[in-house]
């Protein structure tokens, strides 16, 4: 009797024979990559430069955006996509400055992915078409990632430029400790430099280690509170639209 199925025929069920090995060689990020590329087409169709802001929680992403809105004073039309695990707080802060904002809540996930940003882009387009005169066209869309210096680095969202931020209280060894976020970024912003007198933060160390990881990265040191260095950041945005 056959051991496998209990039939009386005496045949063999050769499980090896039914086995099949399939070569896949597909990136686990392929689906995200495809959606991200569509996101970039969507941004291009809106006329927007998309900027993905990555930092640990509390580095000052939302504050930088608030100050940027003030300084630009209507020079460019803006939209903001806020990523957080929970609450509308950051989007409310941006809306209070008169700029359309969409809040994406990840419900626990530690990063934004391209599919979530795809939703956010449709929502922001909807808002822009109601709030701006120019058929929803917009100069910049800022995507404020979930506060985390690790996971967001792996997920391309379709942005044109990636910006990584570290605040003075966090310490100047952040680039060495979280290399991937710096390897993949176009600009490194050191924030809260008004606090330099109170912390043991070396701008030189931060710059040097970021440049070792990524020789092409641009670096700006600024304070959204004192305004120091903000002109360089605005200049960076100007060049993207120049």
């Amino acid at each position, binding site marked *: 009797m056959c051991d496998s199925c209990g039939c009386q025929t005496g045949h063999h069920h050769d499980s090896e024979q039914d086995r099949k090995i399939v070569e896949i060689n597909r990136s686990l990020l392929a689906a995200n990559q495809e959606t991200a590329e569509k996101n970039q087409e969507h941004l291009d169709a809106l006329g927007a430069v998309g900027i993905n802001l990555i930092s640990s929680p509390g580095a000052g992403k939302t504050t930088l955006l608030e100050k940027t809105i003030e300084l630009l004073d209507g020079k460019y039309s803006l939209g903001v996509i806020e990523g957080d695990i929970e609450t509308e707080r950051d989007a409310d802060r941006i809306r209070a400055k008169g700029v359309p904002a969409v809040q994406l809540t990840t419900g626990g996930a530690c990063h934004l992915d391209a599919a979530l940003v795809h939703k956010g882009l449709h929502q922001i387009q909807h808002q822009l078409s109601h709030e701006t005169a120019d058929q929803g066209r917009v100069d910049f869309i800022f995507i404020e990632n979930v506060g985390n210096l*690790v996971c967001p680095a792996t997920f391309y969202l379709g942005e044109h430029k990636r910006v990584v931020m570290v605040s003075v209280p966090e310490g100047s060894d952040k680039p060495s400790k979280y290399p991937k976020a710096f390897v993949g970024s176009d600009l490194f912003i050191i924030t809260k430099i008004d606090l330099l007198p109170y912390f043991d933060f070396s701008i030189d160390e931060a710059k040097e280690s970021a440049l070792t990881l990524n020789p092409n990265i641009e670096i700006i040191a600024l304070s959204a509170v004192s305004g120091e260095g903000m002109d360089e950041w605005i200049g960076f945005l100007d060049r993207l639209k120049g």
Partner: protein
Amino acid sequence: MHELSLVQGMMGQLMDLAARNSANRIVRVVVEVGPFSGVVVDSFIFAFDALKSEHRITKNSVLEIETPVPVMECPECGFSCEIKHHEQDEQELSPFSALGFWGARTCPHCKDVTMITKGGDELLLKQVEME
């Protein structure tokens, strides 16, 4: 923690593959994780073990992780060497290990020329065995 969402996505791919090949069971899954991929292998395995039991098809699947070794090459003189992590192989350190694992390096022969990193960011579903 993003390893969990990556494995979730992979589970979806595995279900599709099983359905397309009329397979009842996924026996073995081979994934390539480069050291610069941003994925922690232990977390990936943990997530796989946690999620595989949710599906009958993957309940007994075995996960194999392959780790390719990235290489650095000088665009001028062609000098190349493997980039190895301290913990990965302490006996066989590359000339650059002392400088840390990540980061651009200048060529030891051409001095000012920055070497080009090849590979290391792989994150691939390579091979699936099913029955």
